[in-house]
């Protein structure tokens, strides 16, 4: 059974204070690892897909990296508008299209 664990559960940063969110996963074979951002009352918004260990992707202040056991979402010099819940999900290579999500990291960036 696929499992995804995200840490920390909550993170409070000052504006400009860089940090990283962790996503540890267990899957029989990884088809893809997905990062989403979710604002209160909204659906998850797609950020990145990573397919293989060593891959990195960047978008503005966010950079996602992938190893065989975990993924990190690095946030560089965050701004208050980066405050949201960040969700990690995996899709296994067994043919199922379903995503298995972690519980998310609630990020608050204070001005």
């Amino acid at each position, binding site marked *: 059974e696929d499992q995804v664990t995200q840490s920390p559960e909550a993170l409070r940063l000052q504006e400009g204070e860089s940090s990283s969110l962790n996503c540890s996963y267990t899957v029989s074979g990884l088809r*893809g690892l997905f990062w989403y951002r979710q604002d209160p009352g909204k659906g*998850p918004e797609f950020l990145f897909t990573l397919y293989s260990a060593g891959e990195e992707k960047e978008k503005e202040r966010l950079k996602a990296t992938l190893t065989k056991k975990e993924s990190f979402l690095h946030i560089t010099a965050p701004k208050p508008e980066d405050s949201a819940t960040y969700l990690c999900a995996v899709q296994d290579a067994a043919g199922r299209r379903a*995503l298995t999500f972690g519980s998310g990291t609630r990020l608050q960036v204070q001005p």
Partner: protein
Amino acid sequence: GAGVSQSPRYKVAKRGQDVALRCDPISGHVSLFWYQQALGQGPEFLTYFQNEAQLDKSGLPSDRFFAERPEGSVSTLKIQRTQQEDSAVYLCASGDGGGNQPQHFGDGTRLSIL
């Protein structure tokens, strides 16, 4: 519209009533997914359609839950004889059919069972 549209945004029902939740996927997307999200948790998979075919319904929690997509576009999730534990946000997502392509989510329907 450009994104996934869900209606209603909020639904309140009494225990025992039947409810129907609608999803309009992104135009041209062949894959459609339903997820259930409890407060403070990540979404949990319910069911998956490829066009009109329901290929995976392994996440449906009971036979009270039923989903359909008769013409391969709009989908409806129906919950019969609702119970309090059905209270959650129900999210719909669509994708362009590629095996590992991202799923794009709507803003969900918040269902409250009294």
